[in-house]
């Protein structure tokens, strides 16, 4: 089994909170850890080599080969992002393509690929089954742009997995998360929450810790395949709003989703994407039995607990800021000194990219 253990791991999109958490958890478990993203990481990690790199650029393939990694954790996938559709498409589809180009055989040495996907791939609609299992992506409906991008991305991954049998590929479809900065959390935290009149859907959420844990478990010898990852149980939208201390206002029109989205933006300045608007109207719940069976693990927090946690966080008012600049400089200094002591030649070029 020692062959299966990851040796050199690259995390793309390491600067988003989930990426940072995954890196923090992986750092003590893998010998070599690399991270790349466009912006600076939130907190510097001594064990990780950070590279400024854009997955949308072809150079990422070169980077993968040069770093000689055997495991890639691809987290540079935008689902809940305020950016425009075009840049989301570039990141999700073109970014995935570039990363796959770096891994592809025969010259590639990547044996393990973990891709972050999202529950948004299923969309939401009235004719859907109550639970989505992994095969139910091809529902006939006009898909929103994010859903389409994710479908394209997973198509690429599936093709790659078919062609390169030597590499194990896992796709994790993470449920909707409600940490402070996601759209869904901002929507639910409003004092008066406009909802679509006459709808009270079921919501299924995922705790940040569970998301990171699932990815780490996948890296450390998880099985290959596509997996739904989401918390057990559901909360109703009205219940979630009440837990957050707001009150629902069923004022958005039940038909014509885009009118509702415009009204929501005008009233509350929360920009809800098309796929999320469908979820707020019809709800979307995944069946995570495959994850439980093959990972032998299930998320520790239920949907209800996730919502309670968010409500508690709102009351406590988090005052902890991302690590102050001095500390960041110190970390970088320590990292450089440690590296130079070990093998200065190799990492010097890498740190050039850092500056």
């Amino acid at each position, binding site marked *: 089994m020692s062959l299966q253990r990851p040796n050199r791991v690259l995390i793309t999109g390491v600067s988003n909170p989930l990426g940072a958490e995954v890196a923090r958890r992986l750092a003590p478990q893998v010998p070599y850890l690399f991270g790349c993203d466009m912006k600076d990481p939130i907190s510097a990690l001594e064990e990780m080599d950070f590279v400024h790199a854009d997955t949308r650029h072809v150079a990422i393939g070169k980077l993968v080969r040069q770093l000689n990694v055997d495991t890639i954790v691809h987290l540079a996938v935008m689902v809940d992002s305020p950016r425009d559709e075009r840049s989301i498409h570039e990141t999700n589809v073109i970014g995935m393509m570039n990363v796959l180009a770096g891994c592809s055989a025969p010259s590639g040495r990547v044996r393990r690929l973990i891709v972050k996907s999202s529950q948004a791939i299923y969309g939401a*609609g*009235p*004719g*859907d*089954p*109550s*639970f989505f*299992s992994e095969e139910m992506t091809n529902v006939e409906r006009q898909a929103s742009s994010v859903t389409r991008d994710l479908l394209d991305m997973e198509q690429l991954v599936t093709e790659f997995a078919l062609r390169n049998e030597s590499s194990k590929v896992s796709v994790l479809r993470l449920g909707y998360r409600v940490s402070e900065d996601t759209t869904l959390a901002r929507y639910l935290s409003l004092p008066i929450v406009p909802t*679509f*009149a*006459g*709808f*009270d*859907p*079921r919501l299924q959420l995922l705790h940040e810790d569970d998301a990171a844990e699932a990815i780490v478990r996948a890296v450390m010898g998880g099985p290959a395949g596509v997996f739904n990852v989401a918390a057990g*149980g*559901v*909360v*109703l939208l*009205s*219940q*979630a709003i*009440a*837990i957050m201390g707001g009150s629902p206002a069923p004022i958005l029109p*039940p038909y014509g989703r885009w009118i509702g989205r415009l009204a929501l933006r005008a009233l509350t300045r929360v920009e809800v994407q098309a796929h999320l608007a469908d979820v707020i109207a*019809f*709800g979307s*719940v995944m069946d995570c039995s495959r994850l439980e069976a093959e990972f032998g693990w299930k998320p520790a927090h239920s949907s*209800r607990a996730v919502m309670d946690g968010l409500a*508690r966080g709102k009351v406590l008012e988090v005052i902890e800021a991302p690590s102050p600049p001095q500390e960041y400089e110190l970390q970088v200094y320590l990292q450089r000194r440690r590296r130079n002591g070990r093998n200065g030649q190799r990492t010097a070029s890498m740190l050039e990219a850092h500056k």
Partner: protein
Amino acid sequence: MIQAKSPKQRRKDSTRAEIVKPKSGPRLAKSVKRLQQQAPLLAFQGLSELSVRLRQLTGRDVIDLNRVMEFAQFMYKQRELAVRGPNYEVDDFGFDPQWTESFISVFMVLYRDYWRVETTGVENVPATGRALLVSNHAGVLPWDGTMIKTAVFAEHSHPRHVRALVASLFMGMPMLSWFLRRTGQTSGHPDDTRRLLERDELVLVFPEGVRGTGKSFKDRYQLRRFGRGGFVATAIRSGAPIIPVSVVGSEEIYPMVADLAPVAKFFGLPYFPITPFWPWLGPLGLIPLPSKWHIRFHSPIHVEEHPPEAADDNNLVMALSDQVRDTIQQGIYDNLKLRRGVFL
């Protein structure tokens, strides 16, 4: 014994108690408050005395105290629901049992007093474990589903909630989708049926679907095609017995004389009914007629005796589907013979 939690851990896990502020504003006198608290009780006492007097005067029950109690119970349940806030659990399908049970007295009024439903064979419904109820579907609005649910909950020795499967069309409608999900219904996807049966629930299906509810009055009590027998295959796969249910009386609640197909198409509905009262009388046309109902639960057809592979045997599935259809049709004819008139 090992201590389950250390005090430190317990402190860490504990949440802070909610601080309840006393209400501000003018205070009522204590005597008024006491009177306010005792008002419902005093009202009951007064009402019961009145009922006794009236009985002595007229010689029969003018005020039925049982009904009054039911009404009071309903009001109390609604109040209880109002104060529970978000502190309740729904199952994965969005079913809220407490909320559903609070409405049972409303449906009981319809069941007992309006349609005077006579239910037979309810003992054929198992007290525990999975089963698939298969019924004929009629009436423009699915009142037959609510009556079957009420029958099992009110008449069975082990009150159970029946989980009906509804067309996905209704799941996209505002209000209706919310109400149906909350009271335990799900969309009629084969996957949902399987999941519900695997959780040992009592599932109700209408294989006729909208073909049954949308048929005109002259075709009443003639069963439509039973889908493609998908319900039999699902029952075999999940090892659930099929219990055919015949409902008589539901055809006459809205006598549909015509169907305006173009209007239905415009609104995205399966049919647009014309009855003697709808749409001429507006919302009053939605009031169903008080026909006399009979519901019969037939003895179970044990399809679970077949191995799960038999579900792929089309011949067997269609034969079983026909057997269920014939049983229901026969039950309808038998009950029609029992009935003295449509409204008697």
